[in-house]
């Protein structure tokens, strides 16, 4: 049985005038110890996917239909008290900006001890011992002293490592990392990603990595979902998606990577912007920006189809495949 199985998840936001569908029929599976990347532009629904797995969508959003089965239990219909026993304990979440994720008025030690005591029956001294072990695991120097420090006394990279340590405190089965390095310096980004990958592999923790960086996804994950305007448009093994993208949008994303462009040339980019979720066009949501769009694309929404290696939601994918010349491995 897979660890997490999301089936036909629909998340809506009830706005004043209309109801916006933020996630439309999202389905995916995640096995134990597996690492999944979710990529897409801002507003594609990546973070909402992460939040809805923990059932943390707050007003005016709500889970309209679908199941989120975590070890067979449905997070979508679970009581608040049961949810709290899973959140932080069996599924942990790492947020984007380490500057604001830690509570500014509590020391690192207080926050770690509190997290442990909320889920386990531990004395303060025992909780502190575990906290120190976890801080060592994320290579925090002098962890005993850190426990007495406040978040503002630490650098961004240090804070994100502490947040990772907090996420690991209760030995969760799944970590959801929502753009964990976006707010950090480039040099620290690589360190944090490497640390996260190491810890997931050594502790056999599953990871859902939400990012807009395909380069990161290709290094970190085994499976990838590409999202666009609240839908999954391409899903499959990361290697396939990065080396041989099927959907025109994924192809555009890969082409836009700076590594794909020779020095002196302009970066290739996908023209236009993603439509706002309040105004998704008929048919394929990507058609206004797609160079291959046909009348069928403009009128009918493509269903996600299993092509063997990957699943793609595109009417033109067969025709594109016939036309396309074999690509060289580049990533």
């Amino acid at each position, binding site marked *: 049985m897979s660890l997490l199985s999301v089936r036909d998840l629909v998340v809506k936001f009830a706005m004043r005038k209309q109801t916006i569908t933020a996630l439309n029929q999202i389905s995916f599976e995640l096995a134990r110890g597996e690492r999944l990347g979710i990529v897409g532009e801002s507003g594609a629904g990546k973070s909402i996917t992460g939040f809805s797995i923990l059932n943390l969508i707050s007003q005016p959003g709500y889970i309209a239909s679908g199941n989120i089965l975590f070890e067979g239990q449905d997070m979508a219909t679970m009581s608040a008290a049961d949810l709290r026993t899973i959140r*932080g304990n069996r599924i942990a979440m790492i*947020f984007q900006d380490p500057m604001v994720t830690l509570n500014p008025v509590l020391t690192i030690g207080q926050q770690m001890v509190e997290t442990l005591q*909320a889920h386990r029956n531990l004395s303060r001294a025992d909780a502190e011992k575990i906290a120190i072990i976890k801080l060592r695991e994320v290579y925090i120097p002098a962890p005993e002293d850190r426990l007495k420090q406040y978040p503002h006394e630490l650098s961004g990279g240090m804070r994100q490592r502490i947040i990772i340590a907090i996420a690991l405190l209760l030995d969760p089965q799944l970590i959801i990392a929502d753009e964990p390095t976006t707010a950090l310096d480039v040099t620290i980004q690589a360190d944090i990603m490497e640390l996260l990958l190491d810890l997931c592999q050594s502790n056999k923790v599953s990871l859902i990595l939400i990012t807009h960086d395909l380069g990161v996804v290709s290094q970190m994950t085994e499976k990838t979902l590409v999202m666009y305007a609240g839908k999954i448009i391409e899903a499959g093994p990361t290697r396939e998606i990065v080396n041989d993208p099927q959907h025109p949008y994924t192809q555009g994303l890969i082409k836009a990577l700076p590594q794909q462009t020779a020095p002196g040339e302009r970066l290739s980019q996908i023209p236009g912007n993603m439509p706002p979720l309040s105004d998704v066009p008929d048919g394929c949501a990507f058609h206004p920006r797609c160079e291959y769009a046909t009348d069928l694309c403009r009128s009918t929404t493509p269903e996600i189809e299993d092509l063997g290696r990957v699943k793609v939601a595109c009417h033109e994918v067969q025709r594109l495949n016939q036309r396309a010349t074999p690509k060289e491995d580049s990533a």
Partner: protein
Amino acid sequence: MSSFVAQAQQSRWARIKGSNLVYDFMHNPVAIVSFIIFATIVIATMFSPLIAPFDPYDPTQYDIMDSELPPSWELAGDSKFLLGTDAQGRDLWSAILYGTRVSILIGICAVALQAFLGISIGLIAGYIGGRVDSLLMRLADIQLSFSTLMVAIIFLAVTQAMFGTEAFNRYALYMLIGVIGIAEWPQYARTVRATVLAEKKKEYVDAARALGFGPLRIMLRHILPNSISPIFVISTVQVANAIISEASLSFLGLGMPVSQPSLGSLISSGFDYIFSGSWWITAIPGIVLVVLVLVINLLGDWLRDVLNPKLYKG
């Protein structure tokens, strides 16, 4: 291990000494002077039974023959009575010490009650939101639309009429605390709600929820400590306000009885004699009241500037 603990304590003390609050305080003469005056008043009133030469609550200790003696520096003054005596021959210095104690006690207890009610209601309204929020905030609006003094006067006058002056006088202290406390809770509730609304959108609250913390823990341990600085600031202003309210009510005869005078009832008791030349019975407690309220407000202003430098130093 013990040296480790000692080091931690030392560093905590060093942290307090090195904090912005203390630094700003040491460089602000107004704050220093206000604090010294306030601390002197509070300490003097706390130890008033030791300092005061007479017990103003004990009728056997004063003599009607000593009534309306002016302060000792005046010609007719008696060196026994430093600040003179009131109409019943009570030593004014002792009465002021005891009276200030009553005033400060009422002020602090009433504000504690306000803070308790207001913070709880504000936290619930801000955190839960929606209809609960609307309901609680409309209640606050209704409460605010009655002036504190009006509510207090009506309530105290009715209870005085119902239970008689004797019973009223016995419980006057508690009733004043209750009335002033209940009448002013919306000040806290509104401020706390506003900061909760701002705080609960911050990511650390999401993170706390993602860690599986319940709403009560998030409210009390995560949001409340982050909303504490406006609460501090209002508290100082509210203590001053509560002392003034108490004095006003006592002046109107609805507060502390003359047998257990507060500053307000001392001012009130002397007011009848002001035209016969006995100015000191009203003026000296009045000055004490003004100084007390002024230093509390100055400290509050200073605290507001330090804790919220962006908003108030335009």
